């Protein structure tokens, strides 16, 4: 769970760094930040505890076995 916390903190602070209080521009930036952070969060949570794994062709498995570390 250690390396799960790191991207979590990283991206949350990235989107939280976007500004304080007034005006349409600031509101737009805050809204953008919220939307983008929520979208990223959903993507990472959906993969955090997978119930099933990918189904690969045997040629792909052969390639991945030797070329991916």
């Amino acid at each position, binding site marked *: *769970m*250690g*390396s*799960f916390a*790191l*991207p979590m903190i*990283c*991206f949350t602070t990235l989107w939280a760094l976007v500004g304080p209080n007034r*005006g*349409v*521009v600031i*509101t*737009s930036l805050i*809204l*953008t930040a919220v*939307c*983008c952070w*929520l*979208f*990223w969060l*959903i*993507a*990472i*949570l*959906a*993969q*955090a*505890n*997978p*119930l*099933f*794994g*990918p*189904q*690969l*062709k*045997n040629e*792909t*498995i*052969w390639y*991945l*076995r030797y070329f*991916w*570390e």
Partner: protein
Amino acid sequence: MDSFFRSEEMCLVQLFFQTESAHNCINELGHLGLVQFKDLNPGTVAFQRRFVKEVKKCEEMERILRFLENEVVKSNIPIPADFTSETIPVPRDVLDLESRFDKLEQELKEINSNRDTLRQNFTQLMEINHLLKVFDAFLFYLHDRFVAGVIKHERFPAFEKILWRLFHGNFVLRHAEIKPHEEENMADPVKKDVFVVFVQGDQIRGKIRKFHASMYPCPNNAYARKEMRTNVNTRIEDLRLVLKRTEEFRETTLTAAAANLQEWASKVKKMKAIYYTLNLCNIDITQKLIVAEIWCPVSDLNSVHTALIHGSEQSGSSLSPVVNRIQTQQTPPTFNRVNSFTSGFQSIIDAYGVGNYQEINPAPYTMVTFPFLFAVMFGDCGHGLVMTLLALWLILHQEHFRKLKNELIDMLVDGRYIIFLMGLFSIYTGLIYNDCFSKSFNVFGSSWSVRPMFHPHGPWTNDTLHDSGHLHLDPLVSGVYSGNPYPFGVDPIWNIASNKLSFLNSYKMKMSVIMGVAHMLFGVTLSLVNYIFFRNLKDVALQFIPEVIFMLSLFGYLIFLILYKWCVVMKSESAPSILLLFINMMLFDYSSEGTVLYRTQKPVQIFLVVVAVLMVPWLLFAKPLLLYRKHKQLKFLSLPFCLSLFFGVKKAFVSLQVSMADIFVYQGIHTIEYCLGCISNTASYLRLWALSLAHAELSEVLWKMVLQVALRVTSGMGSVLLAVTFAAFAVLTVTILLVMEGLSAFLHALRLHWVEFQNKFYKGSGYKFTPLSFNRMRDMQ
């Protein structure tokens, strides 16, 4: 820019002008573009208004200007585009311009008719010339009776047939085609033939006339013909000279007119607008005073005042106009101050409905959520990049595009900032979906690895690979799944997996539901902001709170279930389906086995469903009952004070009978719409999943069946084939994926905003503020 969140506060102002300064003042207000004149003579018909003659004069002048412009364009004279004079049109100018225009029109009409007559004469003379030239060749038959003339080339066969029917072959017909010179082509571009008929009888002349052929008397002997030829030639020379002079004169007149055309056009437009506005005012002739009522934003009252003082100074009148703000019960128009960036978004909101006066304006939130929801459905960073570049091109060259004056391109240019934002967000969602022209990036290293599946760690051997074509990676075998999800977006291994869609569908559907519920909750929260602004705290308790509790207890709980299932580790055999859980919750069905995600699930769910069901009667009955009780109290209190409260209560009494039924029905409709709407709208957000799936699949088809085919060719011709195939790939990408899918996603994102988001808080039944503005009139042209 606080006004962008809510429409501006407007005030009704009475203006008193002197009649002399009226034109100048209205002119100044028109340049300012911040006031809307109210119609103070609503009962009068158009032709009963005071300045109807002047308006008609202006329209007549516009007609003459259009005629002049046509003539100028026909003669290919360039109209100088820029004009910087901002002279104020005064009533004197009207008469002056009118007489000038009339004179110009007369002149031009005369010149045109003269030119036409001259051209006709010229054509005739040229025809006679040709006739005489070819006549000598025909004189085999020295008959006395012959007729010579010119006929249109295409009618000649029909002519010949008629002659055969008439004379049964008892005639001789000779014809030759005229090969025209260049100048004749300009004057008369129809192809013609010369003909000579040798025949007995006179009925031939009637027939020729019916064919619209022209007949010319031709002398019999050669000497007379020669004389005729010299005669005709001299006349042709003279006529050529006269025609040239006429054309030159016409051109000079038109060029002189063209130089002033733009200035006159703008002047006449302004005058017409000013007279139209004057028609709306109240003219008090005896005291030489004009009364006008305008709607004006409160923050701009000062500039209006300054403009009026300026105008009255220009007209040289001593008294400055009086500005008097009045209170009114009428609903003011809705004014949202926009700049060139926000005007696109405001216009798509207004297309659905202009907001009520001072209602919350969804536009600033739409500026972000609309491109974002578009991007969720579009989701490809390669296509997003192309879209962004296209939008940048539109933004940088917008003047050039506007000059083309094509409707479709104008629409694109108006939406350039929207397209730009859509492209930017699409790049982001494309990176999260890990989809770039249907390929994925592997930046951080995949969380899934294959090696642990093999011996001695896992169940596979080399023989397993030989035996089966597809194999599943099992996350329960340690090391296969690293335990940490891919830090940014979807893991790249899913792109090469054959069960990619199983994972993606589940992920995207749940994402759509979460986004949808969040969007709708945001909408309901905005309605709270509206209630607070209008000091309607009663509605907060009677409508907002039950609505929020209903939505949170059902759909908020659904989101909780989704997040819980994602965050908690469980075996795939024992993981219950969320859909079945939700359905069983609503049906109170707890009989089947693996229906528990967590220990206290059953009581929690029962509690939530009961709470949600209780909200329905609260929403349905609380508000009407309260209103009923209040009206009854009012009626009850009125009895001892009947005299003093007589008029006020009478109104309330009458309205009590009428509106009680109305209130119940309205509240019933609102409740049903909200509660059923919650369910159907949540399902409606699944289109986010559907469209992004369609886009990804189309993109993959284009890759697999178009580009990959060319990339796999190993012979030398492969490079040529690749170039051709890439062209096809590019064209298909742009037309199908960018244009078609882009329009489709645009439409669906728009629908989600207009219906699912806005029906939570937006009433949208106001009327738009349309100020008198010369800039707007000029831009609309």
